[in-house]
Every structure is written in structure tokens, then in C-alpha cells.
């Protein structure tokens, strides 16, 4: 307190404090206004966790994967910090979505706040760019193939697409240059841009003031200062957001898939959930129509969003008196969420290679099991065909016993005992159990 007084007498802080905290909110404070600050809070958390991740991360193809694995497995709280950054990214998309929805519902983009809305739309696009560039950085299979798809979509833009894609990719292949430019854009260019636009967004907010309730009559009835009640609501909202993100980071692990392997084309890439609706859309539009989905439609959507305050000329802010705007918004959300829902249905069906399975397969080869057993037409026919043994014998315990001592579970079997260590037993069992008709 004494320090504050000392500084205040020199820097005249009291007036700054008053400007920052005594901003009047027309119509009073409200829980509905917390989404903007929640977004800002998440951005700060992303910035902080990102800086800390950079302590261990190496943006080169030969080290990126290992460095993230190191963070996940060796660094104290490493998985938690990475989890915060990962779930924070999702949280940010949710928060920004709710913030925009609220602005839209309240008609807060209407004059004199058009510029603030436009800056907001650009901020949203920057957040999406963050998501896209950040997705590649772990350099695992998901990252590699999802980015491959994303870049190829850029390539479908007529005339300039090919060139644009090569610029983004940094040359002929998705490789070292792609990774370093995505990294630089993610950690240097975009943050600089985002910070300046957030500053602009907030500057405009202070110039024009918050919009308040949609009826001017109610707005002018009362007005309340930003501090202490709105600050308290924002703080509570931030704590809730933090608790949710931290719990997700603690409870839902976000493991790496295998290291990026350009040769393994069997991998089915899945983008993050907020790009899923778009990914799904591409399944329905083929051939000559493809550019429609890959760039004409997104372009139109972005332009409409950007210039929405000028398209919607209805001066009313009350949602009930804006059926056209609300209808358009509802249809848009309906389309996006149906596509998202469709996509999510397929999401968990994507096979992820369990490393134990690969190790088990290696053991199978090493011990010459194929001399007697046949799998998908390869191997001897002396012993049972194992192509779909995972369906026939899904019981892990049985296999563990069986490998140790085949006669103990199937009397009369002439299969020899194999000298396996416990982890080897486990790996081999995982492999055998993975042999199913339905993966």
C-alpha cells in the first residue's frame, strides 16, 4: 500500500485507475458480458504456456517429435503444461464463438461499433490461423497429414493456389522449412498481430463504450461502474474457465501419435474439432465443384462476416425485431453444427496405432511364429490361422497364459513355450488381440 502511494504520488496512478476501473457500463453489469474477458484470459494463458513450451521445444523435423515426447514424459508438469496449451486452444475457440454469438444476438455490431466488429472478425481469423499453424508443431502423424490436407486445399484455389501453397509450405515438400515457418508464424508473427489487434479492439471499446442492453431505454435507466461488480464477474468466469481447462489437462491425456512418416500413407488425418465441419463439407463436394468448398464458400462466409454490419441495415437491436438476421445466423450455426456432429461420429473410429501392437508384431516375426501360423494368407498352415483371433479370443488373460505355457490352456497343443519377458508377453498379446475383422 505504501509503495502504491509512493508510486502514485510520482506517476499519478489514481487517475489511470479511475479511467480503467470506473468505466460506466450502460444498463449495469451482467454475466452475459464475461465472454470477452474469458477470451482475453485464455489468450494470456496460451501466451504464457506457449512461452514455457518453447523452453523445451525444437522446431526441426528431426527433433520436434522427440522434444514434445520429452515434455510429455520427462519434464515435471510437462504433460500438464502441454495439456493447458492444447485444451486452452479449444477453449479459446469456444470462448470467441460465444463472444461473437452474444455480440450478434445483442446487435452490438451496429453503428457506431462496426469497426470493433470487423477487428473482432479479423481476431477470430487470427485465432484460426494459430490453430492451423500450431497443429503441425508436434510433428506426429496427425499433425503431418492434417497439415498436408490443409495445404492441398489452398492448392485448389484457381491460378494462384499452387503458388500460394508452395509459399506456405516453403518449397516442394512438407518438411523442415514448413515446420520452421509454421513455428515462426505461430510464435512470433501471429502473437504480434493478435496483440496489436486486441489493443485496437479494446481501444475502440473504450472510445465508443459498451453497447449495453438492446433497448436504449433500459440502457439509459441505469449505469454501473466496471469495478467492482463486472470485475468480480469476469474474475469468477476466468476461474471457471481455468478450472475446466486445468481439469481437462489433468484428466484427459493428449498423447502423440506416431512420429510423422511421409511414407506411411495409410494414416487417416483428423483435424481439430473446430475445423471438422469444414473437413466434413469437403466429403460432399467433389470434382469440378471442389473449389467451391475449398475457397469460394469460405471466402464468401468470411466476407459476409466481416461486412455484416453493413449488410444488416436494420437499425433495431432487439432480437425480436431482427428476424432476418437471427434467421440467417441460426441457419449458419445449424449447418456448421450438423457438419460437426456428422464428423464427430466418424472421429473416434479412426484407428490409432498402439506402439505395443507394432512391438508385438516385431516379436511375432522374430520368433518365427509365421512358420506355423497364418495371418491374412501369409505363413504356415500347421497351426490355427490367426487372421481374426482377436474376435475369437478377446480375453487378454488367456493369451498371457497361453504364451507362457500353451498346454495349460489348450491341452494337447504342440506349440512350444516361448521364453518371453513380461513386457514382451504384453506386446505380443496386444498384437494378437489387434487381429480383428472390425478394427
Amino acid at each position: 500500500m505504501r509503495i502504491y502511494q509512493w508510486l502514485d504520488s510520482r506517476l499519478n496512478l489514481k487517475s489511470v485507475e479511475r479511467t480503467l476501473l470506473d468505466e460506466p457500463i450502460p444498463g449495469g453489469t451482467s454475466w452475459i458480458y464475461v465472454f470477452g474477458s474469458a477470451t482475453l484470459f485464455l489468450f494470456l494463458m496460451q501466451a504464457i504456456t506457449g512461452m514455457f513450451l518453447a523452453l523445451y521445444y525444437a522446431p526441426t523435423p528431426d527433433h520436434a517429435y522427440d522434444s514434445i515426447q520429452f515434455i510429455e514424459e520427462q519434464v515435471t508438469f510437462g504433460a500438464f503444461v502441454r495439456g493447458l496449451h492444447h485444451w486452452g486452444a479449444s477453449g479459446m475457440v469456444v470462448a470467441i464463438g460465444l463472444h461473437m454469438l452474444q455480440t450478434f444476438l445483442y446487435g452490438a455490431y451496429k453503428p457506431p461499433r462496426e469497426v470493433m466488429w470487423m477487428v473482432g472478425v479479423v481476431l477470430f481469423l487470427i485465432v484460426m490461423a494459430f490453430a492451423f499453424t500450431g497443429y503441425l508443431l508436434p510433428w506426429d502423424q496427425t499433425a503431418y497429414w492434417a497439415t498436408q490436407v490443409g495445404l492441398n486445399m489452398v492448392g485448389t484455389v484457381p491460378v494462384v493456389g499452387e503458388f500460394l501453397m508452395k509459399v506456405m509450405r516453403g518449397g516442394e515438400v512438407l518438411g523442415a522449412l514448413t515446420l520452421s515457418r509454421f513455428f515462426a508464424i505461430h510464435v512470433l508473427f501471429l502473437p504480434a498481430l493478435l496483440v496489436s489487434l486486441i489493443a485496437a479492439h479494446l481501444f475502440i471499446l473504450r472510445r465508443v463504450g459498451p453497447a449495453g442492453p438492446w433497448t436504449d431505454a433500459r440502457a439509459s435507466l441505469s449505469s454501473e461502474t466496471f469495478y467492482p461488480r463486472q470485475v468480480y464477474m469476469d474474475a469468477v468466469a476466468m476461474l471457471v474457465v481455468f478450472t475446466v481447462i486445468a481439469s481437462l489437462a489433468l484428466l484427459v491425456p493428449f498423447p502423440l501419435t506416431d512420429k510423422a512418416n511421409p511414407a506411411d500413407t495409410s494414416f487417416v488425418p483428423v483435424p481439430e474439432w473446430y475445423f471438422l465441419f469444414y473437413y466434413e463439407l469437403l466429403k460432399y463436394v467433389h470434382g469440378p465443384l471442389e473449389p467451391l468448398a475449398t475457397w469460394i464458400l469460405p471466402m464468401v462466409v468470411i466476407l459476409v462476416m466481416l461486412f455484416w454490419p453493413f449488410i444488416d441495415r436494420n437499425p433495431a437491436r432487439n432480437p425480436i425485431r431482427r428476424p432476418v438476421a437471427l434467421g440467417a445466423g441460426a441457419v449458419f450455426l445449424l449447418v456448421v453444427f450438423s457438419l460437426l456432429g456428422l464428423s464427430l461420429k466418424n472421429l473416434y473410429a479412426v484407428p490409432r496405432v498402439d506402439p505395443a501392437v507394432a512391438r508385438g508384431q516385431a516379436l511375432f516375426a522374430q520368433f518365427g511364429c509365421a512358420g506355423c501360423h497364418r495371418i491374412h494368407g501369409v505363413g504356415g498352415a500347421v497351426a490355427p490361422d490367426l487372421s481374426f483371433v482377436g474376435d475369437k479370443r478377446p480375453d487378454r488373460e488367456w493369451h498371457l497364459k497361453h504364451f507362457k505355457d500353451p498346454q495349460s490352456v489348450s491341452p494337447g497343443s504342440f506349440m512350444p513355450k516361448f521364453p518371453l519377458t513380461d513386457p514382451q508377453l504384453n506386446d505380443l498379446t496386444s498384437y494378437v488381440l489387434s487381429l480383428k475383422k472390425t478394427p
Partner: protein
Amino acid sequence: MSEHQGDGGEGGAYTPVGTRRTFFGWVTTVAAGLIGFGLAVPLVGYVISPALKRKEQPWVDVASPDELPVGDPKQLDHVTTIQDGYLKAQSQNAVWAVKQPDGQVQVFSPRCTHLGCGYRWDGEVKQFKCPCHGSVFNIEGNVVAGPAPRPLDRLPSKVENGRLLVVFKEFKPGTKDPVEL
């Protein structure tokens, strides 16, 4: 005192006062504190993590004891793979091996106990000499002259299957007693 305090200058914005104001301020502080604590603890652990890791000290095969002549110290390569963050790196060190008349092998750390310079063996006078500040050690590693505060540091060694195995360690220079780093 009334619940709301008018502020004519700013369009009639009111500010909660009294216990309400205290409550809002208190909740804000607690929320900020919880978030700060929830971030600070893991982040500090995250940063200091590498400093808490104990270096692994494996036994490394450096030579066959039969190749070592009695009374003539030999400098041997001590090569290990160490974990350097997410990289596996080769770590090269040299150790001094001295075979005693009874066949036992004594292994010395290659750093002078004074300030850590590398010393060498002077075969003429049968002494280890440090070029930096003139410390001199005899073949047992004891200080004969110079500022060195303690004998040469001995490294754990053993002979297994006819091979000499050594663990490399580093010690703090300049102290009376050896302090492992």
C-alpha cells in the same frame, strides 16, 4: 449509508459500496489467487525440472587392466551416451588409470582439485603436474606441492570379465574434502 452511490459526473453510474463492494473485491482476489497459484506451481516445476534430474552414472568399459603397465599412468577415453534433454549425446571424458604393484587399478578424475585444470603425467619425475598454478601430485594422487587442497579425486572402478569399468563423476574444485557435483 445507501447501497448505491451516485456519481453525477459520469452519467449517473453507480458503484456498489460497503459490504457488497468488499465481497466483490474479495471474490476477485481469491479467483486471481487461485488462478495464479494453479499456474505458478506447475510452471515453476516445469522450468526447474532439468535441474532436479540426477545424472545417470553408468559403468563404462575403458580398457583391459592387462594392457596397463605398472607404475606408468595412462590416460583412457571414457565415452558414454548421455541424455541431453530429448537428445542422446555422446559424452567424452578422459580418466587417468594407474596400475599399482599389487595389480589393483586406481582411477583418477582428470581434473586438478585446485581449480579444475587438466593435469598431465611427467614420466621423468614420476609426478602428475598441473600447468595452471603448479600443483604437483605423486602417483598415489597425494599433493606434493602447489595450491591443490586435496589429493586427486578417485573414481569408482572395478574389474569385471577382464575389463576395467569406471564411473565418471565430477567434483567441486577447491574444497578440502571431495564434494560430488
